[in-house]
């Protein structure tokens, strides 16, 4: 298997083009629940474009690390997009173990976001950074175990076998891992009930407070990167619950696309009907997800009835 295939460029192209749309769907859903009209569906695109057209302000405390933060993070997320297939449309780069590269590229993005936050010297950003590294340290093992449960036994540990063409569906592990993955998706993407993207109080934030000092194109990169990350996690969740093996690539892709819309609606619904957990309770939620992931792995091994 040649690891690189540029004929699959459609998958990352879809991610790059459609990721901000997902945030729009979530916002619309939340507006629906709140009985408001809400921002237009394409608001996220306008926000990013507006930020890209602006200048920037840098804190006098900061060094080149602060400027490198958004750049390296977005670079890592773009590389992640190249590893992720969109349904039957393959990934640009695919090999046994690409999932590990994906997980560690996300860690690179996190590392640089966190040190950029610490570069400002702001206690708020230090606080957010501290929470971010804590929760993601707990998320990382759960995420890997979920993906192990979803990839078929004795196969290459690749997204091709979890999300893409090679995915094999067995009900119990998929559902168990699917629910754990929903928790992971919410936690990793700064969503309720772990983090509230719409809160106004810095003390309660995680992700938003880390990027308080970024402005202009840097902040556009961060916003865009966040939507890419949500898109990538959404794709994994969709394929856990929706193991379509349509003969036609078109139908398959349409199903995946529809699944992504559903993901947006589900996240919006969760955000509308739940409150943010106390920060001390978040590890318990993640431990619950870990238990589900472990059960999923055991079920995949045939250890459970």
């Amino acid at each position, binding site marked *: 298997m*040649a*690891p690189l295939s540029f004929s699959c460029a459609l998958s990352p192209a879809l991610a790059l083009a459609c990721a901000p749309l997902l945030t729009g769907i979530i916002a619309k859903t939340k507006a629906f629940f709140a009985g408001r009209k809400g921002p237009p569906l394409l608001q996220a695109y306008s926000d990013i474009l507006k930020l890209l057209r602006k*200048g*920037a*302000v840098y*804190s006098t*405390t900061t*060094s080149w*690390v602060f*400027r490198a933060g958004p*750049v*390296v993070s977005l*670079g890592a997320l*773009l*590389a992640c997009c*190249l590893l992720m297939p969109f349904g039957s449309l393959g990934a640009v*780069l*695919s*090999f*046994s*173990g690409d999932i*590990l*590269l994906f*997980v*560690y590229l996300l*860690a*690179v993005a996190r*590392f640089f976001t*966190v*040190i950029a936050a*610490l*570069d*400002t*010297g*702001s206690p708020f*950003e230090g*606080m957010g*950074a*501290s*929470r971010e590294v*804590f929760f*993601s*340290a*707990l*998320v990382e*093992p759960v995420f*890997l*175990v979920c993906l*192990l449960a979803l990839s078929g036994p*004795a*196969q290459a*540990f690749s997204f091709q076998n979890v999300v893409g063409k090679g995915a094999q569906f067995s009900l119990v592990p998929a559902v168990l891992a699917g629910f754990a993955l929903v928790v992971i998706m919410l936690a990793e993407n700064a969503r309720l009930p772990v983090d509230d993207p719409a809160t106004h109080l810095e003390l309660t934030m995680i992700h938003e407070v880390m990027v308080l*000092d970024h402005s*202009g*194109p*840097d902040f556009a*990169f961060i916003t865009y990167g966040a939507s890419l990350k949500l898109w990538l996690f959404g794709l994994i969740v969709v394929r856990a619950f929706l193991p379509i093996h349509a003969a036609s690539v078109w139908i398959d892709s349409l199903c995946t696309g529809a699944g992504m819309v559903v993901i947006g609606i589900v996240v919006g619904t969760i955000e509308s009907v739940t409150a943010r957990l106390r920060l001390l309770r978040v590890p318990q939620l993640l431990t619950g997800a870990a238990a589900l992931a*472990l059960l999923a*792995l055991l079920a995949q*091994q045939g250890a459970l009835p």
Partner: protein
Amino acid sequence: MDTTAAIFAVAVLVPVAASLAAIPLKPWPRLQTAFGAGGAITGAVAGLYCAVQALLSPAPATWNAPWSMPLGSLSMSMDALSALFLIPLFVLFGLGALYAVEYLRPIPQGRNAAIPWFYYNTLGVSMALVVVAANGLLFLVSWEIMSLSSFACVLHDHEKEGSREAAWIYLIATHIGAAFLLIFFLVAGAGVGSLDFSSIARHTFSPALSGLLFAIGLVGFGSKAGFVPFHVWLPKAHPAAPSHVSALMSGIMIKMGIYGILRSMTLLGHVQAWWGFSLIAIGSVSGVLGVLLALGQHDLKRLLAYHSVENVGIIALGLGAGVLGVSYGIPQLAFLGFCGALLHVVNHAFFKGLLFLGAGSVIHATGTADIDALGGLIRKMPLTAAGFLVGSVAICGLPPLNGFVSEFLVYAAAIKGIGAHNGPVFAMCALSVASLALIGGLAVACFTKAFGTVFLGEPRTAAAAHGEAGPYMVIPLFVLAAFCGIIGLAFWKLVPVFAQPVCILTSLPKADVVSELSTFAPSLSGIAIGCVLFLACTGAVYLLRNRLLNKRTVGASPTWDCGYTVPGPRIQYTASSFAQPIVLFFRHVLGPVQTKHMPASTFPKGWSFHSHVPDLLLDNVYTPMFRLAGGTLSKLRWLQGGRTQAYVLYITITLIALLLWNFVWPR
């Protein structure tokens, strides 16, 4: 063959001889430094040449002394496995010497500048001898020289109480380990009648005996490697030693324990599955506990020392997978596990050496290792900061640097094991994957903390003031950083080098190992391509950003501070507050201690808060144990009255007793 032996003799003799020759030159400390460093660097270059040759040649280079030793011959052998340990050894030894030229300045009044060089050079050379020794006695003697010279290095600042305590703990720990090794070689040699490795390797041990020997070796070598629960000396000894010595001790010396385990496995022959299980269990405990304890530290070098515990944990996970692969006959598991472990040995030497040298530069410039007293050093020391950042990214196992490749191999081994349809292997490998992922996440937490607090933000105290380190201290950082980058991006080209050592460990035919290697090649080239794509994407985003900001207003203002416009540096998050949520979550394992005086009454006078994470094992197990031993054994003090006549009498009595024993039970 003979030229190799001669060059290796240069590598071994020149560093020691040069530093010895420098001792009488006390009035000329610069000359002494030149002798010490020159000897070390000459030795390193010569040794590196031999090691690279041995790694590439299929047959081991052996050298037998024309005279004999008790229980065997004075023989040395350098096979690919030895060479793999020698390469990082000599690289770090040479770079550490270069670094020390500046680091050891200014020489304190009245000190002989050649003495630290003598100990350092002896340490480096003795480790090289440990790795090439092909005889149990020679191995033990080299091991002892290594332990004693590193003990002397730890005592560098012997006027400090803390240094003396650390050195004392280290001396005891290393000798308890050595005692087990003595038993190991005595028991192994007893059945064979010789301590030559070649004879021991030819001997077939019964499974029970080889299991016993493995367990003894695991304790003896594990205490040097720093496996939990034998790790307590590391966080004491590494911070006390000068930084170039810490780099060598942490980067290489603890790997001598790993080398010992590997070599003893080749000597014992048939590996058993439970060895793999125990290695994986020890590895996950050491890995997770090491990084958790590191998170709780305020002292930069203590933090790094605990990370060494974490990293030998990762190495043990790889070794465990390799052993399982051999004992259950899963060649891919064996290949990936051993290859990952060996690569991590090399990688850890480079990035941990880099981090310790970087930490040394920080201490040299600021006079403190207390993370919470530092901050903002990136402006005064941009080059050291860049080096330390590379080391931090590498040690967290992040692409595109070398740490990722070795962790990837260990992961890949564990994932192979999960798919192997074997209950116990599945369980251990799942544990391995989960612990590796947890270790990875926590390592990111720990190194963002360390780098962020030391180098970023505003200086927290006046300590963070002086300028950049000089070229002698900066160049080694950059060389090591370059190694981290090269291994990270080019490992798929370097991997055939690991075929020969893996053959030695698995006793698989070389053709099998090479074919395993080729089935795994797409993954290795895949991560290289992935890393290049990542760098390309980052570069593209960087260019885009610069283009966008070109000709636009780029302002500067204070950090956004919620309306409070004069924030003092003290309001910054400290390392302790950064790690607090994690320490709190794992409080049952870590047992953090908090001393607080909260503000009370209407007009509170003083308040304070202090927290630290103790080493529970040291405080609750070892200290009481040694106190008890000390109390009990002090009842035998009367034997040790200080009179030479009495000691002579003891010796005489012992000799007579031995003679009698020989007569009563003649051989």
